[in-house]
């Protein structure tokens, strides 16, 4: 049965402004716009529209806008239009629903319920325009025994450390899920900013080996693109155990996005869906993880920190404690709002927990066990602004991963259609005609701008608190207050309610 699902959006074209230049038609990979020869006007098939705003942005006369369609089902608070449409789709296809980007549903965003402190009278706020304001962080193990040489000088016996000029990194996004140009922009921006980007599980394109000092390479369950040179090229290695958008399952790259170049980089066949397994098949328990961590360390002469990335799930604190005792240098926690190129909708929207709660619990558990020093903590999913970074650091994070925010800087408009491979912004696509729309020269500058701007804002907020180094903010929960949170939420976050004094 061919069930009709009404268009979600309506393409509104101001006929008085439209010059029929047909740019929208050329720009839309979804085939929404076309030229009606007989009438001499542009027409639109709104059923194909994903609301990516590409046509709106490039229309030279601003003749276009996309609005939510007024065509609605009979109002029902239990059965939303989306729920009904999903049922229609599944009844049609018999398939699992796919979605892209992070969970968009109306669930609590704890960052928005946390407020930050500032100094008044009893200690001075510090002005970052006039005083040094340090945002440099070193990620890695700190739990060393002090050793001295024969002259009594301290011996540098610290395990490998990653230096970041600001506590922000670009999170894992594979070549394949995003384009060559997107990767180039991320790599160049990371280099200029003195931070790191992450290859995701898609391997490292040979052109990007030169950015190795600013690259984290990922080893995921599919082991795509993993070989000795790949590990050695990087500044750090991330073992991906899970992802916030899809805890409990592996990655999924639709065959349409596996071009020849992607296939070579990933070392997998062209044009066939690449589905990495849910577990690593050599890791069925924590002691197996330890073996993989040390295998990777052996392969890289113990010169590179190893990150273990997990999705924020209910027992994340216990999991993190196990990881901290297994030789990992850094733990990355990915919250349930984390982005993805493609994930089963039901999993994305229903599995995992908010990263704020996961972070607070992991940090507290590691401290209670006296092993917070054994690892650094990096959080992502989703960090949307410098304020989120400040709050995450004060809750206990050493640094944050940003993915969606970085893609937005490159032009993404969050239409959440990455899995189709037809990204009109040249980001989540491998079609050469679309990829070339993303100019890496411009893209990398926009990423540099974004992180630079955030760094300024972090400095302003730190200065307001009278803190002149990010180290003194880390885990400094007295600087945070919850607003509108219940006792349980406050206890889990380890913060007081707004209005309670120090």
């Amino acid at each position: 049965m061919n069930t009709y699902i009404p268009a979600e959006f309506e393409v509104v074209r101001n006929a008085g402004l439209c010059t029929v230049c047909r740019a929208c038609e050329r720009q839309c990979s979804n085939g929404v716009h076309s030229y009606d020869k007989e009438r001499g006007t542009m027409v639109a098939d709104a059923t194909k529209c994903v609301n990516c705003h590409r046509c709106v942005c490039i229309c030279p006369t601003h003749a276009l806008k996309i609005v939510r369609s007024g065509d609605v089902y009979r109002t029902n608070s239990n059965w939303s239009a989306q729920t009904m449409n999903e049922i229609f789709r599944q009844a049609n296809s018999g398939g699992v629903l796919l979605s892209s980007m992070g969970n968009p549903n109306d669930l609590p965003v704890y960052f928005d319920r946390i407020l930050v402190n500032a100094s008044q009278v009893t200690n001075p706020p510090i002005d970052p325009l006039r005083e040094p304001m340090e945002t440099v962080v070193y990620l890695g193990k700190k739990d060393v025994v002090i050793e001295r040489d024969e002259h009594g000088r301290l011996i540098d016996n610290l395990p490998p450390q990653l230096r970041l000029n600001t506590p922000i990194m670009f999170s894992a996004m594979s070549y394949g899920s995003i384009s060559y140009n997107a990767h180039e922009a991320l790599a160049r921006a990371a280099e200029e900013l003195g931070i790191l980007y992450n290859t995701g599980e898609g391997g490292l394109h040979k052109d990007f080996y030169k950015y190795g000092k600013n690259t984290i390479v990922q080893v995921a369950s599919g082991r795509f693109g993993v070989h000795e040179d790949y590990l050695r090229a990087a500044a750090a290695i991330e073992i991906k155990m899970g992802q916030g958008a899809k805890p409990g399952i592996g990655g999924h790259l639709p065959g349409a996005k596996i071009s020849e170049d992607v296939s070579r980089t990933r070392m997998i066949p062209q044009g066939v869906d690449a589905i990495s397994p849910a577990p690593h098949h050599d890791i069925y328990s924590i002691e197996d993880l330890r073996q993989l961590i040390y295998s990777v360390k052996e392969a890289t002469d113990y010169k590179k920190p190893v990150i273990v990335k997990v999705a924020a799930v209910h027992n994340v604190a216990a999991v993190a404690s196990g990881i901290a005792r297994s030789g990992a240098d850094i733990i990355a926690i990915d919250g349930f709002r984390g982005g993805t190129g493609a994930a089963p909708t039901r999993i994305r929207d229903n599995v995992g927990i908010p990263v704020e709660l996961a972070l607070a619990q992991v940090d507290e558990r590691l401290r209670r066990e006296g092993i917070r020093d054994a690892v650094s903590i990096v959080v992502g999913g989703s960090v949307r602004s410098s304020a989120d970074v400040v709050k995450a650091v004060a809750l206990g994070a050493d640094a944050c991963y940003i993915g969606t925010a970085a893609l937005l800087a490159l032009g993404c408009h969050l239409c959440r259609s990455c899995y189709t491979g037809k990204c009109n912004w040249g980001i989540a696509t491998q079609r050469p005609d679309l990829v070339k729309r993303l100019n890496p020269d411009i893209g990398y500058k926009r990423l540099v701008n974004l992180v630079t701007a955030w760094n300024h804002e972090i400095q302003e907020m730190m200065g307001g608190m009278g803190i002149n180094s990010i180290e003194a903010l880390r885990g400094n929960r007295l600087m945070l207050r919850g607003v509108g949170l219940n006792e349980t939420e406050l206890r889990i976050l380890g913060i007081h309610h707004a209005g309670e004094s120090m």
Partner: protein
Amino acid sequence: MYSNELTLKSAPLEGEVRIPSGCAVSAIIDRGGRRMTGADIIASIATMHDRSNGLGGGFAGYGIYPDYKECYAFHLFYGDFQSKKATEDFLITHFEIVYSSEMKTRKIKKVANEPIIYRYFLSPLSKRLENSLLDEEQYVVRCVNKINAEIDGAFVFSSGKNMGIFKGVGFPEDIGRYYLLDEEYAGYSWTAHGRYPTNTPGWWGGAHPFGLLDYSVVHNGEISSYDANRRYIEMFGYKCTLQTDTEVITYVIDYLLRVKKLTLGEVAKVISASFWSTIGEKSDEERAQEEYLRKAFPSLLITGPFSIIFGFTGGLMALNDRLKLRSMVCAERGDRAYISSEECGIRAVAPDLDRIFSPAGGQPVVYTLREGADI
């Protein structure tokens, strides 16, 4: 924890709420080891009267108990005689009590609501110590923590050898005279503190100096890194029950100095670290050392305004936050060295000086006894 009717009725106690405060600090050391009464240190801190508001004052004296220098001198506040009995029951099962007495004090109008104050000279019971599998200092620290945390109404406020802390609610000069520091005691080194809390019920245990074994800290400032420092140091068995800056600073220094065996200079480079840009300009060797310390102990960096005087057996260290957001002056005259929040605190007792200077932010000034000085 110590409490009495008065404090229970009013605002929350120290430790139940975090109280920011401004302050005055002062210290004098005779590097030749000659002992002096508390008269000068009282005169010094009294000059800075307006930096305190009468809600706390205190002193630490080093070398004041030469007759009992091998014993741990415990000073205790009691809220009532029940807590005294409970504490003494605990003490006799863990220590040999070599001598004990009520603290000698002088009644002063301006010092009111004083608790019961006792002093004990103690030697750990060797069998108990052996069975604890702890070193002697750690054993004593555990006992102090146990009394403070578990015996309601009792508070150990001094626990070092051949040194003592004297403190209370009032202006520091009155507290000094209350304890007869100008008559009864002579030491080679003294520190003093006058407190200006913005909100306090006036609890005697909350006054400064704060001490742990022979370490004592007086501090002026309000650190912005407090909770980062606290949550880190509590990983290592310390419990910040008072929620004061001075308490956490003392624990941080104790951890770095006694547990991690860093030098005083290295401790300064952790808690008041040079900026990365400054470290970058240093010689290779210095850079390597300072980078190592910052990378290894990032959570013990202390930010926000502070000037501290750290007292220990045989010396003093003065240290400012790295931006120097609190005033502090050092001076020397012969064997005598002086540290004070303001120059007037020094000139009041030593008008003629060989040298006077303001140490830069993050630059520790350490004065220790000269070699051969007998204490």
